[in-house]
């Protein structure tokens, strides 16, 4: 698309673009340099500040933090997906008194901040912080999974269901053996993208005192002294970004692979990939 917006650059345009690029790079480099210089003034790059990473215990704490983050995300995802499937089937049920209450519940869950749900579970049910984090993530993400799968089912040609019903399958059997397999396959990129959101949302555990990566950073900074806050924070943020980046790449890879293999290509959910929280 972008190639249509302007001509194939000739010698003059290439020169202008090159000059623009050089100026742009200089401007960005200048900004970065300013940031680094400001940090250096604070003594951030003194080797002893980063020497904390020679202490094995620091890495043990970071490892524990990553473990806690991934555990919460994995448990939540494993519970949220089947629940989302059930909610989706209820949402598109033929029976009005199943469909309408489900719709209200889904609207409610989607309109609520995740951190508020975690907090609610933590205080009202007086659970531990792990349960609160997982419950908050499950409640929110199952609603999103339900909407994604519903978008997938609606993106299928009408004939799929009609053919299923015509050969005598019950409504549920048609959903289960004809529509859902296709819908889930089509929506795989959106579902994986939502997994990234779920993984990112585990960091909200910080707020309900779940000892995930960010909380461990805080604990370490409190223990080692404020001088070490930046190095520890920097490493934790880099780890978070690296993990999320890998899962995002996985989603893109599935989408590329899927659009070759899945009949009708991939569909997109209107709700997926949004920084939902």
């Amino acid at each position, binding site marked *: 698309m972008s190639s249509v917006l302007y001509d194939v650059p000739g010698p003059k345009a290439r020169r202008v673009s090159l000059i623009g690029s050089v100026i742009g790079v200089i401007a960005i480099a200048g900004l970065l340099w300013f940031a680094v210089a400001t940090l250096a003034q604070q003594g951030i790059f003194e080797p002893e500040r980063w020497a904390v990473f020679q202490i094995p215990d620091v890495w043990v704490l970071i490892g524990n933090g990553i473990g806690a983050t991934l555990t919460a995300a994995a448990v939540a995802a494993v519970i949220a997906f089947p629940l989302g499937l059930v909610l989706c089937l209820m949402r598109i049920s033929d029976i009005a008194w199943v469909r309408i209450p489900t719709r209200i519940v889904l609207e409610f869950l989607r309109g609520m901040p995740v*951190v508020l749900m975690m907090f609610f579970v933590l205080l009202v049910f007086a659970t531990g912080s792990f349960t609160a984090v997982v419950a908050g993530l499950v409640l929110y993400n199952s609603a999103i999974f339900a909407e994604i799968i519903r978008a997938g089912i609606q993106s299928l040609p009408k004939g799929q269901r009609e053919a299923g019903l015509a050969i005598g399958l019950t409504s549920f059997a048609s959903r289960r053996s004809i529509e859902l397999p296709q819908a889930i396959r089509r929506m795989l990129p959106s579902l994986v993208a939502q997994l990234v959101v779920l993984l990112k949302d585990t960091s909200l555990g910080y707020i309900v005192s779940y000892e995930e990566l960010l909380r461990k950073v805080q604990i370490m900074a409190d223990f080692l002294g404020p001088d070490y806050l930046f190095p520890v924070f920097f490493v934790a943020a880099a780890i978070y970004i690296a993990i*999320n980046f890998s899962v995002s790449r996985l989603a893109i890879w599935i989408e590329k692979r899927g659009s070759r293999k899945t009949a009708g290509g991939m569909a997109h959910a209107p709700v997926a990939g949004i920084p*939902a929280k």
Partner: protein
Amino acid sequence: MDVIIENLPAYVDGFLRTLFLSVVSGIFALIFGTLLAAARVSPVAALRGFSMTYVEIVRNTPLTIAFFFAAVVLPRLGVTFQQFEVAAIIALSAYTSAFIAEAVRSGVNSVPVGQAEAARSIGMKFSQVLSLIILPQALRTVVPPMINILIALVKNSSVAGAFYVMELFGYGRQLANANGDAVLWVLVGVAFFYLLITVPLGYLANVVERKVAISR
């Protein structure tokens, strides 16, 4: 129930601050995000690279990390704020702009190629093609996803409550601590005020989506 009525002024104050955070960050994010998207399709390679890197990094960073950086790490580095609202607005708009940029870019991609070709063939420059032909159509198609991003922004602003800003969630925490026996109703009240913003916005997104779908 009584807890909500007794503390109504606190709720309203928090509600207004949530609204304020969302509106200000939303405006900044819309402007910055659109600029990022324009940079992403521009002929200048450095701008494209910058926009791509920014979006990739920010989209994969948890919001809590962004808040932690703005409200805890920055002050330690000598950047102090008079009010924590400023830190919250920086974190929220920096975070949301990446998602706006992606939405606008997908909108740009959804405009039929012939539009750009026609504009080019009557002699428009890149800046004219983009501002007169592509963006007006692209922004139209991205209104529904954009509203969804803004809904997410309203919900995301709740994280500010954990970083010293007394918005809806911040008051919720305070009231929950003060009224240990009525935690349920305190939080139901908070939820109600969030739904007051998010449900109408979601309804709006549906209506706009249907309108756009008909016109195309």
